[in-house]
């Protein structure tokens, strides 16, 4: 073992099974005797259930049973909301697995059908006759919070689920009153469909003899799923095994525990046979959580010489028909605390109002609250620049927090870990050739072509997070991770982790950490995840936390093993421990390099335990629970250059430059992949993605034909750069990078387009910036 593996863009360990089609995702797993579940779903956004007649369905070939909420009775508790934000008068309305008397969004489950085949199950679901009394529906969160809006839950007065405003309003008001300039904008953060390529699926197998339930499901956090499934079914947690096999992307949408997962579990317990459910894409768009959905009233205060003084916003956040698992924490803790961004802004204020609507429940979607904060901040900085007639780059430069290595307190109450924002900023500007761009833009305009540039400086809070903070902000769980490094007698490694990666390449990057620490070749390291029985407890993969938190647990566990190995090697070589030198997986005695023990030799001897130092236990395995002392704060600067065709409204994204700093990069290719994908996801929010509901709550963008997913031909090759600022509190200095692309790219692309449109007189547009909308705005400005 001589190649240095840390920092190398090696090929991914998970790919051989994925490129050959051999990987097994939930729906690929077959059990004999399985029944297929189909769910009868509400076609109305808001209605009372008058009656359900399932007799025709029950008589159909292959149908075993039809069940409603009445049949379930108290067999399933309601789905819990697990982020109980404090000081917000939070209401948590009941979320039954099947609707009781009333449906609250299109797709709300009303009954389940169990049949021997998935086609027959769906046929029978279509044959269940449900009589509804339709009620007025409301979709827009601001309208739902207004007086006279239809009431969605009797116990949520005015549809207000919470009102969160932890900052000093008087102090904020004073800053705005004294400021030279105040700009304001109403920003719509449109609803988005997460669209993991693998739709959700769940299969439950209850064994009546052992009273054990196994649930295979598309989960980002199988241990949380076990926790919740145990709670809703009443089974002891040690009788529930949750397995997240191969999982085809999540982006937050596979964090929550959904009714479907509870229903297959209940049905399997009830019938004593395995029960499987797989959603279609159309069903996914109706019932799997949506993201964003904010109406924001935002203001920014500045002085005439371009000092940013304060940000304040009132946010109406649409929660949908029920409060999903983590929903209350997203537009609050993960949003309002981010209003300082990378700037020296001393005053922030956020009032976030969580509103029940008749839309699909919302929850964490890639970035979760932080993209919505970064967008409003970056949008307002550009607005201030326009108001002051200042170059937006110069304005940003003037307000960036100077470089710091170990802690910087900001007005939000957070302590940023480390950052050199100016370095990333200048590097990105150099790569983009900003100093020449403005001239090129003017030249193009003289020829009737409209170029625009958007520049975003960002930082974000991820690597969630210290458990003490989680408790203080009402998160009903810890945010630590645990890991075991287990070495077999033949010197092969199994790393067991509680987190549950689903596309991030963690089987590779985590193996690289272990390889770096202990010298095992990366090919000899298997990272085991996704099965609650095989792996130690962990809180899951989201919030860009697996590399920083699980990675730290593995680094510490590896270091414990290394220390044990050093002592054992010294004993075996009859040397003093202080004389043992370590390099590349070999322990040698200082001054006599031919006397050496490899890590594999030591592992074997630790297992044999024939000759151990006094007091040393046999075996070669160490575990570590790791609770991070702080979040990590990656940062960077993204730049987009676009051209808008004034005659068609079409936008061409010509260049995209991203300089990101996530500390030392374990595998630069994996990091780049995270940024590429994140940038497209965020840029697509600016350019094409957006949920459309009819006024009565019908989802009009209910298939991939109607919802504009980003395609390969919409993007250029991306130009990536990096700076490296280690996190001071992390054993290997790394920060998360799973969400940075999505966080930075939406305002970058949006501001670039608005920059291009400025000479045409268009100053504001709601996302997404479709060509029809842009063309219409140009026409309106001309007339």
């Amino acid at each position, binding site marked *: 073992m001589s190649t240095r593996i840390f920092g190398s863009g090696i*090929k991914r360990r998970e790919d051989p099974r994925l490129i*050959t*089609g*051999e990987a097994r995702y939930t729906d690929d797993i077959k059990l004999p005797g399985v029944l297929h579940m189909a769910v009868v779903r509400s076609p109305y956004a808001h209605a009372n259930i008058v009656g359900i007649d399932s007799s025709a369905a029950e008589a159909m070939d292959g149908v075993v049973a039809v069940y409603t909420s009445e049949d379930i009775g108290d067999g399933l508790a309601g789905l819990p909301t697990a982020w109980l934000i404090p000081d917000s008068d939070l209401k948590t309305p009941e979320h039954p697995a099947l609707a009781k008397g009333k449906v609250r969004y299109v797709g709300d489950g009303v009954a389940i059908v169990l049949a021997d085949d998935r*086609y027959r199950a769906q046929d029978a679901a279509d044959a269940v006759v449900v009589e509804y009394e339709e009620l007025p529906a409301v979709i827009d969160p601001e309208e739902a919070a207004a007086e006279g809006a239809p009431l969605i839950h009797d116990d949520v007065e005015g549809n207000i689920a919470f009102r969160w405003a932890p900052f000093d309003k008087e102090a904020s008001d004073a800053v705005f009153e004294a400021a030279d300039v105040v700009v304001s904008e109403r920003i719509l953060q449109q609803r988005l469909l997460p*669209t993991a390529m693998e739709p959700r699926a769940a299969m439950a197998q209850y064994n009546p003899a052992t009273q054990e339930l196994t649930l295979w499901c598309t989960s980002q956090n199988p241990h949380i799923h076990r926790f919740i499934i145990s709670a809703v079914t009443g089974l002891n947690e040690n009788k529930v095994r949750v397995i997240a096999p191969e999982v085809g*992307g999540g982006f937050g949408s596979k964090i929550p525990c959904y009714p479907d997962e509870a229903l297959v579990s209940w049905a399997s317990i009830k019938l004593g046979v395995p029960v499987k459910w797989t959603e279609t894409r159309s069903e996914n768009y109706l019932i799997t959580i949506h993201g964003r959905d904010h109406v924001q009233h935002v203001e920014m205060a500045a002085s005439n010489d371009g000092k940013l003084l304060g940000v304040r916003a009132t946010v109406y956040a649409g929660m949908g028909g029920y409060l999903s698992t983590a929903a209350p924490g997203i537009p609050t803790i993960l949003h309002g605390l981010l209003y300082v961004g990378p700037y020296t802004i001393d005053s922030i204020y956020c009032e976030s109002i969580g509103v029940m609507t008749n839309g699909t429940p919302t929850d964490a979607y890639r970035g979760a609250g932080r993209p919505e904060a970064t967008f409003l901040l970056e949008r307002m900085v550009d607005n201030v620049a326009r108001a002051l007639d200042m170059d937006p780059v110069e304005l940003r430069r003037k307000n960036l927090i100077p470089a710091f290595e170990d802690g910087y307190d900001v007005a939000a109450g957070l302590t940023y870990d480390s950052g050199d924002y100016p370095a990333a900023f200048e590097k990105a500007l150099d790569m983009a050739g900003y100093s020449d761009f403005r001239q090129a833009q003017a030249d193009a305009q003289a020829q009737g072509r409209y170029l625009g540039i958007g520049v975003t400086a960002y930082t974000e809070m991820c690597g969630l997070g210290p458990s003490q903070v989680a408790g203080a902000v009402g998160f009903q769980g810890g945010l630590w991770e645990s890991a075991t490094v287990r070495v077999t007698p033949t010197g092969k490694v199994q790393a067991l982790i509680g987190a549950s990666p689903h596309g991030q390449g963690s089987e590779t990057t985590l193996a690289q950490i272990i390889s770096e620490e202990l010298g095992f070749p990366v090919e000899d390291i298997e990272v085991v995840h996704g099965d609650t029985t095989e792996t130690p407890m962990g809180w899951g993969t989201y919030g860009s936390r697996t590399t920083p938190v699980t990675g730290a647990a593995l680094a510490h566990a590896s270091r414990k093993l290394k220390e044990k190995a050093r002592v054992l090697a010294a004993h075996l070589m009859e040397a003093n421990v202080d004389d043992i030198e370590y390099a590349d997986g070999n322990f040698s005695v200082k001054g006599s390099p031919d006397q050496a023990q490899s890590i594999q030799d030591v592992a074997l001897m630790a297992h044999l335990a024939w000759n151990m130092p006094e007091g040393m236990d046999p075996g070669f395995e160490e575990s570590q629970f790791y609770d991070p002392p702080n979040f990590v704060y990656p940062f960077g600067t993204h730049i987009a250059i676009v051209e808008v065709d004034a005659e068609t409204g079409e936008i061409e994204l010509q260049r995209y430059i991203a300089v990101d700093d996530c500390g030392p990069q374990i595998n630069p290719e994996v990091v780049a992949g995270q940024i590429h994908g994140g940038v497209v996801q965020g840029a697509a929010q600016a350019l094409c993605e957006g949920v459309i509901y009819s006024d009565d709550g019908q989802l009009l963008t209910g298939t991939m034909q109607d919802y504009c997913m980003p395609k390969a031909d919409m993007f250029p090759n*991306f130009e990536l750069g990096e700076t490296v600022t280690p996190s001071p509190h992390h054993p290997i200095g790394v920060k998360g990078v799973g969400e940075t692309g999505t966080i930075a790219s939406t305002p970058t692309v949006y501001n670039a387009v608005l920059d291009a449109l400025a000479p045409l007189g268009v100053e504001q547009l709601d996302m997404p910036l479709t060509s029809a909308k842009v063309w219409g705005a140009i026409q309106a400005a001309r007339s």
Partner: protein
Amino acid sequence: MQVSMTVNGVAHEADVDPRTLLVHFLREALDLTGTKIGCDTSQCGACTVHLNGKVLKSCTLLAVQADGCEVTTIEGLAEAGEHHPMQTAFWENHGLQCGYCTPGMIMASAAFVRDNPGASEAEIRHYLEGNICRCTGYHNIVKAVKQVADAAAAT
């Protein structure tokens, strides 16, 4: 209804419900689960296979319509235990993350490059419009396909 087809070189005969989609037949009856389902409107391309050598989204065809045809799925793309060059290129270029769109991407790209050696980046991006990936931002997929296209043009 009786249907017979050769899948990955193996002859199969089966009695199927006439409405069975080819993709469900492959996944359920033959247990060839490498072919994925990512949508229900033929947009995403996760179910892409080769039918008599041509690219096909297998959710757009009934199994009975493939009667007498030769089908190749991702499981049959490798030859003599060697990865197809497109599989190798996806691996080498980090052209995948969660892997769910990957079988369809590789099947579509393999046929495209076979028919269009030396394809340009713009042509590749245009062609891949029929396959959706949520993870990679397409950057490394395009890189992988371009690598194979360039190699195909050179031979």
